[in-house]
């Protein structure tokens, strides 16, 4: 993958945003459903390299802000802050561990949800709600992580299988 500003990438962003907002609720389990935009950020981190992850995270966060209500830029900031941490974690994994993709994806989605919760309520969240919300964030992270193999397969098909990976040993 050489260029982010291409029709394929822009179209894929729009498709994922529409799926996240309109179609994924049909697959909800106990009010939680996966986020394809988060999966795209993880895909960019695993496959395209550190310099591109931040851009993907920014546009994914902006689309999430525009789809939902509230302040524009909030999700964008949170994901842009988490993107370098995601890249750093991947760079430090020097040997292939079974399930490492899933663990990193789960941690990223969980941290994104927890940060969003923290910023949304700024410490004013009633203690009785914390358990419920953390449970929902954990379920969302698990559900999103479960879709990782299928998403990677379909995204590889969309963009064409690229040899430009971060780490040759990461498969």
């Amino acid at each position, binding site marked *: 993958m050489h260029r982010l500003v291409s029709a394929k990438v822009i179209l894929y962003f729009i498709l994922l945003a529409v799926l996240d907002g*309109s*179609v994924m609720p049909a697959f909800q389990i106990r009010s939680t459903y996966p986020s394809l935009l988060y999966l795209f950020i993880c895909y960019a981190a695993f496959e395209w390299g550190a310099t591109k992850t931040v851009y993907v995270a920014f546009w994914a966060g902006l689309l999430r802000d*525009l789809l939902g*209500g509230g302040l524009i830029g909030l999700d964008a*900031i949170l994901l842009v802050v988490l993107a370098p941490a995601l890249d750093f974690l991947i760079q430090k994994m020097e040997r292939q561990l079974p399930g490492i993709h899933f663990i990193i994806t789960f941690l990223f989605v969980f941290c994104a949800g927890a940060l969003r919760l923290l910023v949304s309520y700024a410490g004013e969240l009633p203690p009785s709600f914390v358990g419920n919300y953390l449970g929902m964030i954990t379920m969302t992270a698990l559900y999103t992580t479960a879709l990782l193999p299928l998403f990677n397969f379909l995204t590889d098909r969309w963009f064409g299988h690229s040899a430009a990976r971060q780490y040759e040993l990461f498969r």
Partner: protein
Amino acid sequence: MRRWRSYYFFGVPVVVLIVSFQYPRVNESVHSVFSTLARPAVVLGSSVRDGLYAIRYQSGNFLDAVGKQREYLARIQELEGQLVRFREMDRENQRLKKLLNFSLPLATRTIGVRVIGEDVTPWKKIVLLDKGSRNDLKKDMAVVVPEGLVGRILEVEPYTAHTILLLDPDSRVSALTATSRAQGIVAGIGTDKLQMKYLALDAEIEVGEDVTTSGIGSVFPKGLQIGKIEAIERDSDGLHLLALVKPAVSFSKLEEVLCIVSSPQK
């Protein structure tokens, strides 16, 4: 050059957030423009979602019906008997109301709308409707389905509207229990249940009692079904009772809803 570009992208969302925070009108305008532009794609996505719901619903119904055919036939016979009795009770009710000189509410004007999207944040219960101010929708209009109250309109754009559901933690409705007539506030807690708060300690409420809107506050008409009481306990401050309410509406299956445009004459 590449590193400089990455640092630039740290600054851009900060600037965007500051502008949104300082200028709420700009925030609303951008949301409005995006909702209008994205509406065709979101409506297309919602059609796909509706198709999936229909498949799931029909499959479930078919499997269920095959297994319960005899039970359904017996139940139909029982219900037909009840229907005859209820019709007679309704006629008697009409006569008694005339005798007491009750004035029945006039029919309210409603607009049917489709739910075409949802807020992507897990604990926020806000949905997107496919009509807006061009179709006479206004902020704070009540949204209902035949089963009961769904929520109210939060923001209106020209062709779409955001609706906050009862389940949202920021949702508040003044409510009344059907039998004991105890007043309280029903609030969402971010899950699939509701909480009825500020009930008097001596309120004679029971599990299984219906909860309806009280009409106080003039946002929601009186008498709209909210749900049934599932559990009762004391509040953490010990000064009020707290009731857990199971909503009458199945919020996970919202597809078409009604917006109440005009209030009934009193």
